[in-house]
């Protein structure tokens, strides 16, 4: 729950983010929250809204706008994910998502650095920020000076958990190792981009041209908190259909409803090379305010409603 002063700081952050994107030539869009079919993602559970669904991210509609000819768009919207509730999870949260045509995932990493640099300049009064560009969050003192670290998933697993990614994938414990051994060590001294994920963990991301096992996906971590997830977007409708069919198979195996998003696939051929990224707005605000939980950073949490 936020005080009026906290709400003002949240408003200031929204405004600063918008100014960054407007100056960078982006257009703000607002797409429907309620959709008849969602992109099939096996680990994300949507809320039903009559016989439609509340969206779990704005990705589907934003990519259709790219197909319509938009080239740089951003959106700040609420997203809904069932069964996600914890210190840094809420079932309804605010996402900042943006797309840039002609870019790849490394371009987006640089843009994340530029966004945070601008926020530090515009919002020096944020309690977590110091004048020399250090973010204090929980027990971490994180230098936001650029460039930030870049670490492949394979290297991070080797370095922080002493294991090979292929081994943990074979054992089916990738998430467990990531959460218990790797994530807590990420971004403690400076932000880090964890990149090049196993292809099964990036169903909407393009494969590396020289390695079909690796998807061009990254996650930004600050203070052990996963803040943003970006891709070089997969824009080949046939490959996307194949990847979705694997997700749908997995979902149906768990007794869940899933359908092929045909209108999305029909538009995908018109998108062209693009990079896109989703950033948890509440988490960013939590970090900048020095709050240790997401609930403190939100205007309301479920228990107050």
């Amino acid at each position, binding site marked *: 729950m936020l005080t009026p002063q906290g709400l003002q700081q949240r408003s200031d952050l929204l405004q600063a983010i918008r100014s960054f994107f407007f100056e960078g030539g982006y257009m703000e869009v607002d797409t429907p929250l309620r959709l008849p079919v969602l992109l099939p*993602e096996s680990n994300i559970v949507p809320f039903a809204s009559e016989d439609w669904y509340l969206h779990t991210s704005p990705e589907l509609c934003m990519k259709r706008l790219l197909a319509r000819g938009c080239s740089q768009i951003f959106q700040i919207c609420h997203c809904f994910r069932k069964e996600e509730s*914890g210190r840094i999870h809420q079932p309804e949260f605010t996402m900042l998502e943006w797309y840039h045509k002609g870019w790849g995932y490394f371009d987006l990493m640089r843009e994340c650095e530029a966004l945070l640099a601008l926020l530090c300049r515009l919002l020096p009064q944020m309690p977590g920020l110091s004048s020399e560009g250090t973010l204090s969050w929980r027990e971490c003192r994180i230098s936001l000076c650029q460039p930030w670290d870049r670490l492949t998933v394979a290297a991070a697993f080797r370095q922080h958990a002493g294991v090979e990614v292929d081994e943990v994938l074979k054992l089916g414990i990738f998430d*467990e190792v990531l959460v218990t051994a790797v*994530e807590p060590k990420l971004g403690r001294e400076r932000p880090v981009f964890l990149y090049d994920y196993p292809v099964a963990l990036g*169903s909407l991301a393009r494969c590396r041209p020289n390695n079909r096992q690796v998807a061009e996906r990254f996650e930004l971590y600050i203070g052990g908190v*996963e803040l943003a997830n970006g891709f070089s977007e997969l824009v080949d409708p046939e490959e996307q259909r194949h990847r979705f069919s694997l997700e749908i198979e997995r979902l149906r195996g768990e007794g869940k409803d899933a359908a092929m998003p045909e209108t999305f696939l029909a538009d995908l051929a018109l998108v062209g090379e693009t990079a896109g990224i989703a950033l948890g707005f509440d988490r960013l605000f939590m970090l900048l305010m020095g709050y240790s939980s997401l609930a403190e950073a939100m205007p309301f949490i479920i228990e107050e409603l």
Partner: protein
Amino acid sequence: MYTASDLRKGLKIQIDGEPYLVTEFDFSKPGKGQALYRTKMRNMITGVQFTQTYRSNDKFDRPNLEERNMQFLYAQDDEYHFMDTVSFEQIFLTKEQLGDNLSFLIDNMEVQVLFFGERPIDVTLPTFVNLEVTVADPWAKGDTSGTDTKPVTVQTGFQLQVPPFVEQGDKIQIDTRTGSYITRVKE
């Protein structure tokens, strides 16, 4: 049945036929990954602690736990005998099971005994108990500092710090959660 999404601090679940108390809990979900429920648990019989990460489709039985009002009757060797104040059924717990509770347990005391199925596994004492002071140094009259305390021994053999005016033969009230002195009791 509980599923992993029911897990929270304080929940009691059954694993491999034994009751466990969740003492710490954290929800994690890496981007595009699956929900993970990280817990720290204590075996309610052995006290052994361990940490475990569960996935959302993991399920747990509810342990059959029941608290009954019982009265402490007597101790024989290492067996402490209690009687159900409703059914008059008698059971015993071992010295080891009672642990620190022995510092405050006296004859005829009414307590809550926790049963796992038919098996008594733990005791909850009243929060406040009145015990007699059996050993105390006399109060040095004239000591008016007022802030000092002195050690005394009560009838169970338990030692604690009390204000200097407490004397041998007095009854004092003790908080069984902390073992600290509350007040002198007039009877």
